[in-house]
């Protein structure tokens, strides 16, 4: 286990894209201390900010409030990173494998452009979970993101494959421009879920007002949904047991192959 402890809370953000098992697993503690990080516009080293302990390993533990540390686990492909506090922007972006666990909260772009692996966030996420960077036409293309708390706007925007589970609420535009993949929201989803989605599934446990370009076409009870919920259960979430879902197809502004499944309940009650 490699233990990194942030010595002092940062006021200026740091870019720590080299803090990944891929880069650190075969390095001694001294070598790790010499790895480059960018702090504001200055080139610094990991040793300037972190106490480095432990032995060579593909498991990294990061302690301290890293809310200003960006790009933890950027492009990682194996191993495990455990952030004991908060993490900053772009955590797990472009990740292809391995596992990131975050005990606190994260800022925006958690798992952006992710291709594989697992991110387990126990706190709240910022905007664009599993999203696409500005201008990109596809966001997350694989892997799983589990957020036990709430997520911000545009969760799973431009998502192409993979699974995002949100234990709490999401902001507006969950699944905007979604190409495929699955988003499960156990709490309350914000406005305009699935705007301009082409394919993919958004599974909502609570009623919300949908866009007029989604049309209702039946009530389903499908093993596929139960399998997805079972998977979330193994990842430590607490989805409800089997139930029936009202299926909405859309977005009719595109090819309308997407679906929003809303758990059957008091269907007539529309939340403002």
């Amino acid at each position, binding site marked *: 286990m490699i233990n990194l402890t942030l010595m002092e809370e940062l006021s200026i953000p740091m870019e720590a894209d080299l803090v990944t098992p891929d880069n650190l697993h075969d390095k001694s503690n001294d070598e790790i201390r010499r790895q480059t990080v960018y702090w504001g516009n200055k080139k610094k080293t990991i040793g300037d900010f972190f106490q480095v302990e432990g032995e060579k390993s593909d498991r990294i533990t990061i302690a301290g409030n890293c809310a200003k540390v960006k790009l933890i686990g950027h492009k990682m492909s194996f191993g495990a990173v455990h952030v004991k506090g908060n993490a900053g922007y772009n955590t797990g972006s472009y990740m292809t494998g391995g596992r990131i666990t975050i005990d606190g909260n994260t800022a925006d772009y958690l798992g952006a452009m992710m291709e594989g692996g697992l991110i387990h966030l126990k706190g709240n996420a910022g905007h664009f979970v599993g999203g696409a*960077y*500005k*201008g*990109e036409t596809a966001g997350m293309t694989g892997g799983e993101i589990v957020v036990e708390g709430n997520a911000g706007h545009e969760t799973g925007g431009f998502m192409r494959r993979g699974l995002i589970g949100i234990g709490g609420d999401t902001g507006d535009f969950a699944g905007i421009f979604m190409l495929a993949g699955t988003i499960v929201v156990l709490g309350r989803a914000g406005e305009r879920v699935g705007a301009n989605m082409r394919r993919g599934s958004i599974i909502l446990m609570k009623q919300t007002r949908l866009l007029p370009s989604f049309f209702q076409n039946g009530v389903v009870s499908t093993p596929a949904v139960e399998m997805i919920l079972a998977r979330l259960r193994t990842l430590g979430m607490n989805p409800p047991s089997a139930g029936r879902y009202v299926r909405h197809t859309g977005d009719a502004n595109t090819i309308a192959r997407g679906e929003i499944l809303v758990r059957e309940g008091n269907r007539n009650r529309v939340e403002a």
Partner: protein
Amino acid sequence: MGIRIENGEVIDPAHGENRVRRTIHMKDGRIVADAGLDATVIDATGCVVMAGGVDIHTHVAGPKVNFARLMRPEDHRYEHVSREDGYERSGTGGVAATTYTTGYRYCEMGYTTIVEPAVPPLGARHAHEELADIPQVDKAIFTLLGNSEIIFQYLAKGEMSKINEYISWIMDATKAYSVKIVNPGGANMWKYRADIHDIDQKLCDFDTTPRQIVLAIADAMATLGLPHPLHLHCNNLGVPDSYKTAIATAEAMEGRPLHLTHLQFSSYGASGKRKFSSEAPRLAQMVNDNRNITIDVGQVLFGKTTTITADGPFEFHLHKLTGSKWYNGDVECEDGCGVVPYDYKRTSFVNSIQWAAGLELFLLIDDPWRVYLTTDHPNGAPFITYPHLIRLLMDKDFRREHVERISAEAAAEIPLKTLDREYTLYEIAIITRAGAAKRLGLVNKGHLGVGADADVAVYRISPDYEEMFAKPAWVLKDGEVVAKEGKVTRQVFGRTLYVHPERGFADIKGELADFFESYYTVNINNYPVGLEYLPRPELIPCQVKQND
């Protein structure tokens, strides 16, 4: 203090020198006969020494390039340039790079002169502001005039001498180097919901045709004595049977000098099962037969890029075809433009044909002095791919490997697979510098004779031509070493080249003021770009003919 480059093999096609082992002397920014005893010596053993590269057609500055930058934030994330030794400004690379990065990237490849070929007159101020921030290279702009309503009006009335005066004025007002025409009449007519498909089609509301526009402007340019002839992007570009329009346009010129730009995009026919084919052999034959015509290729290379052109209707069709993002611009009475991101895919039949058509043009045109290496940056590919393109031309085995990787259906049809020609280093020196400089009328560039600008690139000879041309051992600009081993070591600024036709515009002064008053958003007094926008101007003289 001077510099001597010793032991290198000099390739200087303008003087017929092919790998001649001689010393190049330079002092005070010029090639000289003897740099003196105190000169610094560069030992170029195992290297070829060429003049700095000259890119005759590359979209690097001006309003539409800026829209391409704005439109593709994702493009900028692939490559960051940090401020470090030599690289005094940070920036982002990608297809539409920032100004400083553009200069650095050209310098890293050994290019020292570039031409931004499509600036609408109203965008000239913006273009010069950007050029002022492009380091390492000399630069120039061409002004777009093929859709100017002022010219249409004079043409309809048959007032040719007024066209001469207008072009004389506009060259001075935009501090341009030459004139480019894009889709003559077509880009303008598209604003009137009409599309031009033939060079003899009448423009609605204006009693003229693309043929008349092209001829009138070509004649005016000859009268004014502009150093570079008409730079033409044909009507009907990018569609099947576009080659017919290109040939018709070339024939219409009746021996007048003409530069057909990115001809690859005009080299498509409609034969074959898919109704899309390469007609590059016919165009190459046309170029071989007509000595008044030069071309640059506008090679397509696979990958993501952003297409930028003043051909508004073409970009609209491309947007409809791909569903990609689209920007359309209307430049008042002067022109239009469009920007659409595009991904050239190896697996696509059409893209594979495009890729092959460009290479066929290179390989089938016999005279390297009349074909220049471009990718129509960034329309066919970004300019940083030039070394790869050079290797495709010089190495037939490498080319064959790539033919095997394109769409199999296209590979079965293309004439390219039968072509075994390989460019020599001497020919590469012609198509990348000597020929282009000669056609641009730049007497001090593209060669290493005494008196030339001391812009030199020294390439370490290697069987991997891509590596060789990507990382020159030394690059010198104005007699100073500015890059070593493909890394910029020193930031310098080049000159902006412009012309000043002596014709003046006394006869049309009043009419122009009225036209501006009626139709422009800009006051005519605020319109011309002053010399203060050119930090290092260099006036290139016009060769004026006496008879009008």
